[in-house]
């Protein structure tokens, strides 16, 4: 191999490494800051908080049985994840959380790379559900779900490479509530 070939090869590897590290960094960026929600803890009658980082997800993945089809799918999905963060607050009466609590999250979800792919407004149930994803190239690098009802606020943040078609397998796992993700399609990346 000539020096020129060596140099080209090194450059290619560097580019690959840069692209990869950029993707990882952007995946990490998919984590949403939600510490301001902690103040709701003393008002809520039911609280669920889950914080699983990459190491713990990989640890959990060790115990998934690849011979079981669903567990194998979950394991495959978990392998690409950097974190799962869940907050569920249930209140005895409406009005215990403020719209500013959600606005703070939404403002982060308006940053570049994030797209809202589902928005449901139910007047009958008085429930609003927004699903946002963060795209890196053609890949989904993060997902955030806000479900707001008068007496319940749920926020889910999944950080890492998410295959939306397999996302259903995560429902009910790792503290993630059952979600109606039918019909959720992977959108084109937004140019902003």
């Amino acid at each position, binding site marked *: 191999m000539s020096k020129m070939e060596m140099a080209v090869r090194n450059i290619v590897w560097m580019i690959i490494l840069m692209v990869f590290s950029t993707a990882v960094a952007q995946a990490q960026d998919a984590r949403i800051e939600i510490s301001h929600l902690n103040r709701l*803890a003393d008002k809520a009658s039911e609280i669920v908080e*889950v914080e*699983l*980082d990459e190491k713990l997800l990989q*640890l959990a993945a060790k*115990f998934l049985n690849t*011979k079981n089809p669903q*567990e194998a799918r979950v394991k495959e999905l978990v392998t690409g994840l950097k974190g799962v963060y869940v907050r569920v607050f249930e209140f005895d009466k409406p009005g215990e959380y403020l719209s500013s609590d959600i606005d703070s999250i939404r403002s982060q979800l308006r940053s570049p790379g994030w797209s809202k792919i589902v928005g449901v407004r139910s007047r009958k149930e008085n429930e609003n559900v927004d699903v946002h994803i963060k795209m890196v190239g053609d890949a989904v690098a993060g997902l955030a779900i806000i479900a707001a009802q008068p007496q319940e606020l749920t926020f889910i943040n999944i950080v890492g490479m998410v295959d939306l078609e397999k996302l259903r397998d995560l429902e*009910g796992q*790792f503290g993630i509530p059952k979600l109606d993700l039918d019909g959720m399609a992977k959108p084109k990346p937004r140019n902003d």
Partner: protein
Amino acid sequence: MTVLAILATLLLSGVSDAQAQQPFRAKGKEFKDVVKYIETQFGVRKTHIPMLGLANFAFKLIRPAGVKGFKLAVFEDADFSNHPGNLSFNSFMREAYRKDWQPLVRVNSKREGNVQTYIYARNAGKDVQFAIVTFEEREAVVMEVKFNPDAAARFMDNPKIMGISIGNSIRGGGADIAGNNTGRAPSRRTPPDPSPRSGDIDSINVDHVGGAGPSSAPSARPSLNGTTSDERHPVLSGESNNRSSLPEVNADLPGSAAANDREAIRIETRLVNLNVKAVDKAGQPLKSLRQEDFLIYEDGVRQEMTHFRPVNAPVNLILMLDLSGSTKKSRDRMVDAARKFIDALPAQDRIALVAFTRKYRTLADFTSNEALLKQSIEKIRKISGGTAFYDSMWEALDNLDQISDARKAIVVLTDGEDESLVGSEETNHSFDDLLGRASEEDVTIYPIYFSASNHYNKLGVLFGGSLGVGPDSQKRTAREQLGLLAEQTGGEVISTRRQEDLDDAYRRVASEIHTLYSLAYSPDKTKHNGEFRRISVKLNRDGAIARTRKGYIDK
């Protein structure tokens, strides 16, 4: 899952309710701090369990499931529901488990008596350490566990302690995660053929005296539930019609076995009984419909209704109470709620009271005597044991088979967790057997799903029971099974997690039961070929919907 596996290992080793302090982490004082905090704040001491030191030594030596050590402190018989400020304890936990530790899960349910669960984790080289703190109303548990995840994973694949196998792979056992998980239980014996059921087939053997012709056939007609009806059981008292549609008369043919008795005329008819709920567009029950408002179809072919009973007709009901250990703390509330349930039912309803653990106990036979029923409920305070849910339901169906009236229901307060789901006990009847039978009976089943929380199922918040083992997976399977029983019989599952909600749950059931009409028809084709006959009931009211069982097996 790891935590659950470790907990299971601890339980297997007989140290579940113990306290121990093993010096596997000399520098760590988080555990001591939390224990001291609880002792100081609640004025309570750790429960002392004998032989725990030996168990600790055994764990250190054997390292079962990769567990290298644990600390456990249990506090009992103190009021932990009212501890000083949830936020302050949360803050305390974050302070105590600050260095190297990462908060994983926090669950706080003020509605359930301020139940709290905290799980923290940290890496310790190749090992992982978990800290779990739970508060329930009368119990607190502080536990730290250190284990090697690779060894734990190997243990799950091949559970061995000191080279001795303790069973099949823990992973994936007991439940088919891929779907269709009905938690089939092992059967000790072949279940009896669930059909024909007395509720579906009416066979009347009539002695033919003195060679009289068919014209002397009895005036008896099938009762609504299909058992022989006679003067002693005038269950339909004029509500029936269309006598001509009832029996198909098959005189025995020469050469047939039955023809040996030429003095007999065999009249056979099948009656299909249906308990039907009718609702309007808004889902509100329609309670004043008449017979002509209903249209019955079998495999798409209109059938002629032979019997009709309105929603206010009396119901024969078995109230079943699951008295497994998990409900022990709720007995006072269960008694109180059951009493109110009896009050809520119309006086003419006949109620039997049954308690079940691994045994099926009839505390009161069918009666309308409220005082007797309420007195009998008191007996449940002294009963406790396991949960043979499938077998108990089977026996309840047996009991109801003896009732000649068609309006029958089972109201069962349970968490639905048959012991076969955890493999600890075998059952005479699997869930599939039970579901098959229930779907063919004319009994409407209303499960009241009552699952009190505890620190073990709180762990399921983290792991979701997705691995097919562990308490949360069993609970999910149990809950799904209750749903299937209700769906197949036209009933409804009512879920409640808190004792305080039992009154409401019963009230709803009491209301639901008397939204049911009872109909029956005699199918125009009976092939007895084992095929499934699909039933649908329609209403001649715009937007109204009728709900009933899906069909029956034509055997």
